[in-house]
């Protein structure tokens, strides 16, 4: 159900800061691709360029092309339309505090005007099941506020919320970095299951996490993509010395 992403000559700026330089990257469909690299190397910026969230900052600028499936997301469509096809899960869970769990999960649909209650009920259940949260919250869907769950549960709910709009791509920006180890492993299991249905791009600081969940990995450094290959190769026999230095912990 997912589509592939083709990134060509992507450059990004924050004001005069040239954050991303000449990124070229084919992201395969229905696989999980991990992006690793030290802090500030631009991997978060890159992911935000894939759903045009980078543009929410008024001083941001982008050149180059990103094709998701058949469409160039910068030339062929508006940011709002793209974000309905490309879901995002953020570093810190950000449930809507004034909404119940039910309303949180289907917010992407309700806020866009969808109102068929029966279908919404089914979608909420399906998304929560896919996010491995259904059994924990199924009795409190409308009673509990989205913000009253634990950190790990909130993040899984945010994943459910992103899945409810049936995207083709799921972007995850360090989704487990704010969570405890138990929640982290639950989320990693989740990614493992989801990648057969969606194209997943996951930014992570944790190299072991990348090794566990992703088939392909890209290494970012100082705004450039240094190396992109199968995860196995990146971690056992990297072609670039900088990659090797990072993997072995010489810096970052």
């Amino acid at each position, binding site marked *: 159900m997912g589509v592939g992403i083709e990134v060509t000559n992507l450059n990004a700026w924050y004001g005069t800061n040239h954050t991303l330089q000449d990124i070229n990257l084919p992201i395969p469909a229905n696989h999980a691709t991990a992006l690793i690299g030290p802090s500030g190397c631009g991997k978060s910026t890159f992911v935000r360029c894939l*759903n045009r*969230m980078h543009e*929410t900052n008024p001083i941001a600028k982008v050149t180059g092309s990103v094709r998701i499936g058949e469409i160039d997301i910068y030339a062929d469509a508006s940011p*709002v*339309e*793209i*974000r*309905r*096809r490309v*879901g*995002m899960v*953020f570093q*810190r869970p*950000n*449930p*809507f*505090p*004034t909404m119940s769990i039910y309303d949180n999960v289907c*917010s*992407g649909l309700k*806020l*866009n005007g969808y109102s068929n209650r029966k279908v919404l009920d089914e979608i909420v259940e399906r998304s929560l099941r896919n996010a491995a949260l259904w059994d924990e919250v199924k009795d409190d869907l409308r009673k509990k*506020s989205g*913000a*009253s769950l634990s*950190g790990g549960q909130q993040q899984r709910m*945010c994943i459910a*919320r*992103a899945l409810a*709009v049936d995207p083709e791509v799921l972007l995850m920006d360090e989704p487990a970095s704010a969570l405890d180890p138990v929640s982290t492993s639950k989320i990693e299991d989740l990614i493992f299951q989801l990648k057969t249905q969606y194209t997943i791009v996951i930014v992570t600081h944790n190299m072991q996490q990348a090794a566990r969940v992703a088939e392909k990995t890209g290494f970012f450094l100082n705004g450039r993509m240094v190396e992109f290959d199968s995860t196995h190769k990146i971690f056992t026999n990297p072609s670039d010395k900088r990659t090797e230095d990072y993997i072995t912990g010489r810096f970052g």
Partner: protein
Amino acid sequence: MKAVSQSSRMHGAYRSGLDHLATGLCVLATILVVAPLVAIFAYLLFKGASSLNLDFFTKIPKPVGESGGGMANAIVGSGVLLGVASLIGIPLGVGGGIYLAEFGRGTRLANAVQFTADVLNGVPSIIVGIAAYSLVVIPMHHFSALAGGVALGIMMIPTVMRSTEEMLLMVPHTIREAALGLGVPNWRSVLSITLKTASPGVITGCMLAFARVAGETAPLLFTALGNQFWSVNLNREIAALPLQIYIYAISPYDDQHRLAWAGALVLIALIVLAVSLVRYVASRGILKGAS
């Protein structure tokens, strides 16, 4: 350690004495300030409570010289005036606040708007009354509740605008991002997510503005004018609580003085309620339950 010399010891004593004096003066100042406030409240409570009865809330003023009667028409009249004022002040204020927080942040235009709002807030209320007189009373050829409502509404705008802006800015950026990331249009995100999250604070900001203009008398002196009888007609003069208090306070009749105290107590109660609510909401924070 070297022995401290006589003169430096004296200087030290002088400095320490000065310190104590300063502390004493500040404490004295505080007492001098708190005392009249407590006195005012106590006096109000005492004089007002003894004059407050059911008649106050249900009857209209009796003719001069007769005892009894109440300020029911003034309370209702104030309600009407505040209703009109809210219809003007709240939409413009909240809308302006949304602009300042969500669209114009940091722009020169937004700074100019904020500055002008503060300036309007400092314009004496009687001047706003003159403007309303010129804008509404003169073309209509008579005094009206509408004119009074317009004057009060204008006065609400700066308070509502600034407090809405403040409350919206307190909504964390991550929540806006979550909405945008789902492909929710910006206008929908601002209304259904950001504004909704900030709504307790926005509502109490409106309440504060409401309570403040509820006590305003000057702009009503030659717009709403006041009315001895029941009237909710927007096209005619209307009674108002603070206006009635003023008229009774300067009258020579004891009965009317008593009514004035009762009215003042009601006004104060409303304001204390509003201020307390604002503080309560502020202390709870606007994100219930979120970490």
